[in-house]
């Protein structure tokens, strides 16, 4: 995430990328829910995309730690990221064990809730940070 982009553009980029990623993942999860299918390759794609989201969040967090975002926002992001990591861990174990029920619960309940919280708790604050910088 080392870049020559000005702070305002960088924060806007983080906001936009996070929003797109959350929308994309939510859409995939919604289709899995509607299809009632959580053990298909499409479900594994969701896990891969969630991994990518976590990597992105790590870089975004590093950048925002440089005093750009409020303490409250950073804490919220850390809290949600930890929850996301625990969901991912659970998903990996469920895939290994072939536990369809656990997969279903983790994808359609836990992961879905986590993504909603990013949208409600983080995106609006991130947006105001990008506007104020």
């Amino acid at each position: 995430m080392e870049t020559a982009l000005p702070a305002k553009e960088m924060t806007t980029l983080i906001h936009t990328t996070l929003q797109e990623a959350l929308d994309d993942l939510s859409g995939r999860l919604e289709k899995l829910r509607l299809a009632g299918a959580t053990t298909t390759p499409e479900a594994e794609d969701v896990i891969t995309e969630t991994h990518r989201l976590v990597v992105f969040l790590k870089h975004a967090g590093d950048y925002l730690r440089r005093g750009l975002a409020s303490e409250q926002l950073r804490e919220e992001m850390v809290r949600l990221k930890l929850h996301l990591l625990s969901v991912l861990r659970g998903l990996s174990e469920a895939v290994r064990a072939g536990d369809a029920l656990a997969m279903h619960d983790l994808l359609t309940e836990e992961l879905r809730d986590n993504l909603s919280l990013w949208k409600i708790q983080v995106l609006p604050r991130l947006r105001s940070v990008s506007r104020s910088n």
Partner: protein
Amino acid sequence: MGEGFTLAAAAPWRLELSGDILRLHHGPRLELQLPWAGRNLALMAQAMRPEPPSFSAPLTSPMLREATVAAAELFGEGAAASEVRPFVDQLANTISLKNALDALFRLRWFQHHSLGLLYVHQKGEARAWQIGAGEGPGAGATHTIDVERFNQLHTAAKKSKTGQFSTQGPRWSWLPFGGAFLAETYGFRGFSAVLLASRQEFLPFSPDEVERFHRFAGLLGLWLEDLIAVEFSDLRLAEVMLLLVRHPLPLVLRDPDGQTVLASDAFTLAEASTEPLSWLPLGRGYALGIGEEPSGESAGIDVIHRHKIALLGDLFNTLGHELSNPLFGLGLAAEILIGAAPDVEARTILSEIRKNVQRCQSILQNLTRLYTDQAQEGTCDLRHCVREAMTLAKSELKGVRTWPTGLNGEALTVEGRPVLVVQILFNLIVNSAQALHGRPAPRIDVSVHEDEGQAWVVVADNGPGLPPHVRQNLFRPFTTSKARGHGLGLALSQNLAVKAGGDLESMDPPEGASFRLRLKKVRA
């Protein structure tokens, strides 16, 4: 994130797809950005396929296969073959939200549900759309509801475990039916939706019925994102298609069978010797191919100008949306004032205002209908239409001698809605008048003719005539001989003429330009 970027390069040009956005770069420069083109292009291409749906689409997605099998298991093997699979195939082969909804409620297990409604809300809009299935109450017509009501319904349905409700009590009194109903929610990027089914009776649904509803509503949901995208963007997509056809790069859109659905002029010219260098997958098996940059004249075509034209689609939509309410208010106010007008003069002026408001409303409606396949039914007096078009074009005809013939006589009734016929004639007369600017002794002849089955109007001028390069593609969009023209007038006029069951053609006279609008006569 998500599907990431997919690139198709034919240096120095580069095509890039990111979600719904299709971008075209020339070297480091972004030349063109089409916000609706990405995934939707494949959907439009599917709609353009000449053959009817084959109902044999392979279930390529494992998720879809699993969902279909699960739905079929609810009813046994026989039902799977006779109903479930055809239903899934219909969903795969339609791009109409209404057709998909009708297909769901035509299923044997839903036939006793006399009502099926879908509410769709686009993010940021103050109202949500209501679309009805079949022929039942609220069906066919499309209405809107307040977003507060939609949110109330969506939240309640999302929180409910069974999705079963009753209209008893004030909470759901605004729904256009009474009794127990089932609800399924959908939430995708940019929109959310709720599907309702009701038998219009107060007996609750059995657990089997509830499961069946959610299973099939889920199957519908797998296509909902695409269907809604098309439903709310067809005009924009039509513009995108036109833009691609006229693009100076060799671009070709092919279907899953490798058949060409759409090709740019540059590709058609070069196709004998060149195959596209690279392919950009658009989804649903469709791909956009990009060829080598052509050399010579076509390489310098103004891409930005075409981009602006593509935005016309957006403009039509916005105009329709933003102007219809004030126009309605204006018409109503004029109507009220006519009743209270103190004298004949005031009444005449107000009547003129009301008439012109109605005309504006008709034009707006017609603009939005231009890209639909609906026939433009109606009849009109051709002579009256010519007179009206000449009156409307009066300001353009200053200094031009007009020579009308065949305008007197009995009403000459032809097929075609008056507003559309006047619009075509108005376009032709204004085109001629503009071509005559600065010419010596400018003159336009407008003549009406008829034989047994047809009637036609010829609009001829003594202007410079049509340059050969314009004549070749006269009725193709974006073809113009004017320095500042959009090149849409004749294309739209021909489109309107065909929709009215007639035709419009250039007569190729020895001097000037001449066009003939032919329409079917209506027998008394």
